[in-house]
């Protein structure tokens, strides 16, 4: 799709919350006034230095930011083995898996709970798939003393017991959702049903850069700390920007967080990595951009996994965090504009990359960034040795060791 290239890729969304043809506010009338209130409050917070100061302070002293920028020397060397002469780019990681709670999710939760309190809301709800966003939400609720209800598909509750217990330890109520396929999208439906019935006191902390405007914008902004830090760290360490950014994409918040501050640096290429599950040729994948079509779900217009009648289909990925039939609307726009390239990685490729990083760098990655690492491994071999790849290591793999063990045929 060819559209006129804008002067800047960083001015979206427009005043209606649209990213080109995508985004918007497709919500029931009951929620519309609240969504408009949220936008007003977010604009006020953006203009309030005290809000930014509190956000920054919490990120530094509670989350542990800035996260390190790390040159993965042994992974780089390992990927050079078997590469064509002179090829094998240097691989660097933004270490967001070292954040409190083990993933990038907490950046956004800190921002949203501060907004919730500004709005005088006294009850927090959220949806979760793998449980990472649920844990991060439960964490900030405990930190600020607000009651917390987490909706989680019953299927996910069964396969993510450690995170369910973590949320309960943190004082959250975890409600298993049995409707539909009982996974992430059904949890999001149930979150929206709760919200619509409790608009007066409840704030919905959405976990990714999707949903009705202004969520895609504000989640991106809160996550942009990743890219802002990385940009400054790169300049400080090697005096130049990376050649290629790589990040995994479910809803797409960690990728946008890394990409957004670089969007107007034309020399920096970007690669978003979707989950190809068992392969893009069948329907057992979660690649909304590469295998879906534009449509409307959960408050925004974006690419969706759906059939010819607009019924939403169930994706599949080994990674519960990527197993969602939609994607943030800004990615849909960036794809159509050609600013970001998108690819997909299968379950098996992600499992191989997971093990590769464990053994070369002593880092156990989550299955989500394992998809990014697999894509890095392919690209590094095609790029010259003086090129720099920066990938977002957006979560650690402690939560995934049971899944990985099962796939490797190991009894635990």
């Amino acid at each position, binding site marked *: 799709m060819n559209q006129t290239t804008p002067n800047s890729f960083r001015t979206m969304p427009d005043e*209606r919350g649209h990213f080109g043809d995508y985004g918007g506010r497709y919500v029931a009338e009951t929620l519309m*006034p*609240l969504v408009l209130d949220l936008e007003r409050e977010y604009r006020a917070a953006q203009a309030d230095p005290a809000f930014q100061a509190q956000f920054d302070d919490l990120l530094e002293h509670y989350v542990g930011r800035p996260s390190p920028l790390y040159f993965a020397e042994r992974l780089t060397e390992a990927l050079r083995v078997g590469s064509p002469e002179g090829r094998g780019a240097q691989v660097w990681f933004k270490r967001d898996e070292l954040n409190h709670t083990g993933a990038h999710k907490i950046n956004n939760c800190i921002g949203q709970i501060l907004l919730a309190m500004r709005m005088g809301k006294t009850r927090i709800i959220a949806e979760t798939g793998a449980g990472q966003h649920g844990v991060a939400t439960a964490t900030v609720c405990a930190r600020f003393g607000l009651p917390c209800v987490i909706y989680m598909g019953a299927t996910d509750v069964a396969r993510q017991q450690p995170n369910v217990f973590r949320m309960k330890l943190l004082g959250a109520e975890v409600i298993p959702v049995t*409707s*539909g396929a009982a996974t992430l999208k059904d949890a999001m*439906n149930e979150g929206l049903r709760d919200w619509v019935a409790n608009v007066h006191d409840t704030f919905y902390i959405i976990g990714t850069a999707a949903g009705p405007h202004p969520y895609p914008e504000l989640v991106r902004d809160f996550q942009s700390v990743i890219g802002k830090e990385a940009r400054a760290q790169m300049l400080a360490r090697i005096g130049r920007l990376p050649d290629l950014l790589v990040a995994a994409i479910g809803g797409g918040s960690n990728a946008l967080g890394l990409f957004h501050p670089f969007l107007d640096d034309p020399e920096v290429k970007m690669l978003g990595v979707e989950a190809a599950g068992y392969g893009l040729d069948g329907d057992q994948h979660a690649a909304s951009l590469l295998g879906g079509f534009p449509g409307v779900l959960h408050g925004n217009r974006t690419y969706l996994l759906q059939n010819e*009648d607009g*019924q939403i289909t169930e994706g599949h990925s080994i990674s519960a965090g990527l197993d969602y039939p939609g994607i943030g609307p800004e990615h849909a726009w960036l794809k159509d504009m050609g600013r970001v390239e998108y690819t997909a990685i299968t379950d098996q490729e992600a499992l191989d990359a997971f093990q590769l990083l464990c053994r070369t760098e002593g880092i156990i990655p989550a299955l989500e960034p394992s998809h990014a690492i697999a894509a890095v491994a392919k690209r590094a071999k095609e790029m010259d040795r003086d090129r720099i790849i920066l990938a977002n290591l957006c979560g650690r793999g402690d939560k995934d060791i049971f899944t990985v063990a099962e796939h490797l045929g190991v009894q635990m």
Partner: protein
Amino acid sequence: MGTRAMTRLSSSFAKGRPTFVAFITAGDGDTAANLDALVEGGADVIELGMPFTDPMADGPAIQAANLRSLGAGTTTADVFAIAAAFRQRHPQVPLVLMGYANPMVRRGPEWFAAECARAGVDGVICVDIPPEEDDALGPALRAEGIAPIRLATPTTDARRLPKVLEGSSGFLYYVSVAGITGLQQAATASIAEAVARLKAATDLPVAVGFGVRTPEQAAAIAAHADGVVVGSALVELVGKHGSHAPAHLRELTAALAQAVHGAHQPA
């Protein structure tokens, strides 16, 4: 066609008594027989639900109906076939489609609006297209003479109401509770107050739905509103009685319609 469609809806609200609107989900059970039972029971307007995998504004009863319908293989083509056949059998009964944006816009809004016109649909209620996103469907519907029926809710304040009313037609659907379909019911006093507020702002008829289950509740609301919508209670009968549902639907519809039609309206 457009004019006739508007006439069917507006004339059903111009009978000098409150209107009863009955909802069931398309493709759930023998829909043709179920729709006939609603008409025979005395329903003035039929609201036909388009099944969707993710009915976010619906409670358990209508969620289950959506899943039963999709489980039986209902397609968008089937929904329009049901609507077109209904129009053949009941040339004068207004028929409104209710559903979610994605199945409506999947093949483009113009395609959807043209199909509505061809099937004899009078109006469309789309839960998740608020006035702010009207472009996604509204212009296409209006071009075909199909009424875009908007929802007003307890959270729709006076500042916002004109935006909701702009470009809406047929009737105004007042969602009596901030919540999902089929569960709690608002106090009659608050409904009366809200309807009065809406009627002061528009000439459109105001129908009230969400949480209305019994003839007593329906009568109490009909004393203040131009119409009453019942959905979940009817859909539950379809789920419970399957192929025997028509007799039960006819019975409950008759009781509800009688209660609505006979409700005393303060002068």
